[in-house]
């Protein structure tokens, strides 16, 4: 048998073929994302869910209606495309003038809803989909065996990708699309119905995802979560390739697939992380991406959601009120719930420090929570450290991770920042899944609580509660002070207008990195303490779902307000505790809250309350509505 660098050639070619197949799907998905982003400035987080809908749609057509593969190739994309058009009409259209992040948040909520609903209907186990008869079998190429269906997928995706490229780059319709990407109002002023064109583009991009889903159905198991992890890899592909280049999306998609295949052949452990390593390297060397010519423009029209800070005395009263409620809380509510809620509140406050005050919305904050939990658990369980030292170790690990990831991520901004942090966190997730000391799927269990400073036994519930209370209130006060400090003011200035802050002499990157690291540290503090309290560190805490939850808490409560994240965390944790019997519908409710928040109250509960109080106090001034900044006349 021939071997290449110790790997049998059959294995190598097999992995390369698999890589090419994966690459075909990455290419089709990132192509759709790029087209949609170009036209609408929306990063369609629901792209993975719509890809899943395509695959599951094919399965449903076959299972319930007896409609086979070839018709499914037409019908599933058509159905999903129409579904996409309905979404565009009803939900996305009001968002075009807002910050691009809102589009990403809304579609994130949509993907939770779609995936939750389908999981409720079909469960999370995979459904097999048979290869159509005409494409079964294969050919022996001499050096490897090539299944016909896989060859078909590669050819079909190449045809679809190049066809899309041709339409966009070489046809009249494509020139409309390209022109509208640059300056939509002017194209409309030439007599082209741009809103309709945007609608159809979204429908087409989404149909492309569904088509990829149908093609994927016979290769992968069809299940409601099949799009969830793919979309994160596709985001990394998009960052590697750079938004805005159609050919770049196609080439990068196949390239990433091939690199994955090669890695699987030579170093299988690294195959799930290699994409993210590639992304990190590209970010270091070419922040705009391999094919991207322009770094992201300033993130659209900025709508300030900042609430007026209450007077100092009010703040002290508010803080004392919250402390008092939490002290007497265990008399009325289960203390375990309160402790969990407080730790998540601290996590959300830490997140809010950069998302609300620094406007760096991270989609990967779970990595700090989870990593600190693992390190703290390991320190307490294996090294036998006392809880305060274990928590300190865990927290410092989050600090270090914050410095490294922050250093990479702050090279990008806006939605790119969101995608980069998401991808980095996914890398940490895979490390946690595979590393020997994390316990893989089981996690670290039975972490000893131990004696605080060797004196206070944390197995005593009152002491434990007091300890969590002190950690939470301490962290909260620290954040409140940071926000109020000159450092916090500079941070807000950077959020409002970064070039202006730079022109005043501030090294804005240093400020952003410092804020990011501080946020990571406090998130780590929450994660480490949580590991001690729950005696458990698990994959849940590093999963992207957790990053989504902290986003939800913060946006529901009110981003950029001190108490918003606290309120949001208590509500979300309460929902999880008391609605747990609803199963998948909790995810759907989360998603629905995202959608409602983005569409109806972007200030969040606390933010809207503050705005309402501000209005009723000064009835003479008209209500200030968020709107487009004046343009030059």
């Amino acid at each position, binding site marked *: 048998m021939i071997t290449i660098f110790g790997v049998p050639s059959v294995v190598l070619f097999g992995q390369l073929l698999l890589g090419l197949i994966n690459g075909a799907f990455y290419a089709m998905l990132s192509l759709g994302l790029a087209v949609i982003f170009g036209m609408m400035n929306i990063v369609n987080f629901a792209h993975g869910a719509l890809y899943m809908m395509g695959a599951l749609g094919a399965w449903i057509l076959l299972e319930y209606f007896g409609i086979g593969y070839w018709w499914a190739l037409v019908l599933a994309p058509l159905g999903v495309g129409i579904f996409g058009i309905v979404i565009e009409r009803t939900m996305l259209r009001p968002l075009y003038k807002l910050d691009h992040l809102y589009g990403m948040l809304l579609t994130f909520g949509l993907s939770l809803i779609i995936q939750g609903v389908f999981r409720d209907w079909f469960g999370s186990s995979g459904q097999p989909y048979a290869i159509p008869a005409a494409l079964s079998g294969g050919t022996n190429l001499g050096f490897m065996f090539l299944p016909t269906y896989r060859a078909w997928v590669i050819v079909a995706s190449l045809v679809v990708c190049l066809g899309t490229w041709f339409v966009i780059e070489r046809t*009249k319709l494509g*020139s*409309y699309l*390209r*022109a509208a*990407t*640059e*300056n939509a*109002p*002017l*194209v*409309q*002023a*030439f*007599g*082209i*119905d*741009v*809103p309709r064109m945007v609608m159809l583009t979204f429908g087409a991009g989404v149909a492309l995802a569904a088509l990829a889903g149908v093609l994927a159905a016979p290769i992968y198991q069809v299940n409601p979560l099949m799009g969830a992890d793919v979309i994160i890899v596709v985001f990394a592909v998009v960052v590697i390739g750079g938004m805005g280049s159609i050919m770049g999306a196609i080439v990068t998609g196949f390239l990433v697939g091939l690199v994955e295949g090669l890695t699987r052949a030579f170093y299988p452990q690294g195959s799930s992380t290699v994409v993210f390593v590639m992304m990190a390297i590209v970010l270091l060397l070419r922040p705009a991406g391999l094919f991207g010519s322009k770094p992201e423009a300033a993130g659209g029209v900025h709508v300030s959601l900042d609430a007026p800070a209450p007077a100092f005395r009010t703040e002290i009263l508010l803080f004392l009120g919250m402390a008092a409620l939490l002290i007497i809380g265990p008399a009325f509510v289960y203390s375990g719930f309160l402790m969990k809620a407080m730790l998540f509140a601290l996590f959300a406050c830490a997140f809010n420090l950069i998302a609300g005050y620094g406007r760096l919305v991270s989609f990967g904050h779970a990595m700090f929570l989870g990593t600190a939990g693992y390190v703290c658990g390991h320190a307490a369980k294996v090294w036998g450290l006392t809880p305060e030292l274990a928590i300190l170790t865990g927290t410092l690990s989050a600090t270090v991770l914050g410095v490294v990831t922050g250093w990479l991520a702050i090279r990008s901004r806006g939605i790119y920042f969101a995608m980069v942090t998401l991808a980095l966190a996914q890398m940490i997730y895979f490390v946690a899944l595979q590393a020997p000391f994390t316990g893989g799927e089981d996690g670290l269990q039975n972490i000893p609580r131990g004696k605080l400073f060797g004196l206070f036994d944390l197995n005593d519930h009152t002491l434990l509660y007091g300890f969590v209370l002190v950690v939470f209130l301490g962290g909260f006060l620290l954040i409140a002070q940071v926000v109020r400090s000159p450092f916090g003011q500079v941070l807000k200035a950077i959020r409002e207008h970064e070039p202006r802050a730079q022109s005043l002499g501030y090294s804005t990157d240093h400020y952003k990195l410092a804020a990011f690291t501080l946020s990571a540290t406090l998130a780590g503090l929450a994660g480490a303490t949580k590991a001690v309290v729950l005696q458990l560190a698990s994959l849940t805490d590093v999963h992207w779902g957790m990053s989504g939850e902290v986003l939800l808490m913060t946006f529901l409560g009110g981003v950029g307000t001190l108490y918003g994240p606290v309120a949001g965390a208590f509500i979300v944790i309460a929902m999880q505790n008391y609605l747990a019997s609803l199963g998948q519908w909790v995810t759907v409710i989360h998603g629905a809250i995202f959608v409602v928040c983005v569409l109806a109250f972007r200030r969040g509960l606390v933010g809207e309350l503050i705005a309402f109080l501000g209005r009723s106090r000064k009835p003479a001034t008209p209500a200030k509505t968020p*709107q*487009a*900044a*004046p*343009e030059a*006349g």
Partner: protein
Amino acid sequence: MAEMLKVNGLKAWYGESQALHGTSFEVNSGEVVTLLGRNGAGKSTTLRSIMGLVAKRAGSIRYDEKELVGAPSHRIARAGIALCPEERGIFSSLNVRENLLLPPAIRPGGMTVDQIFELFPNLKERLTSQGTKLSGGEQQMLAIGRILRTGARLLMLDEPTEGLAPVIIEQIAATVKTLKTLGFTILLVEQNVTFAAGLADRHYVMELGRVVDEIPGPAFADRIDSLKTYLGV
């Protein structure tokens, strides 16, 4: 002469700040009319409002007996109005040919591509260049040229001479005269008074978002002093 465009009490807002406070004027078929005024007087905003590019507007814009003040901009374009914007709006992701052919023909009677090349021979040699790689003058020619194909009868040119060399300005002046003889109606926004004086049938002076004076073309020389007061030159 038949009235083509009648703007009455036009108001427009950028966000919460009002830019037009009741602008009124009219343009007759076949005329060249200029809007003069200082920076910030509302000239460009008037053109953008007519084109439907300013979201919030009130009052009346009647074109060919049709009310356009509430219409979306693609509907306005299809009524027969075309804009050559101040920043020229050449698309960098399109080459010169694509830029030229971008605006769809909305009615018959537009110029052919060959006729446009006769007006602007430079364009013909650069058809495959990226649109924004052209010189400023060529970009201006491209921006004017591409709205001649569509069959629009009212052309609105927003400061076509801005930042261009005198020799190019002369060429553009000659173009405007040619277009007039071809029957186009032209609404011109200009800062360059000498350029405007040689071309226009009538001038309107704008101040603080209103039309404050009308000067017939022949009276331009007599009124130059009052015009200087308006423009502060």
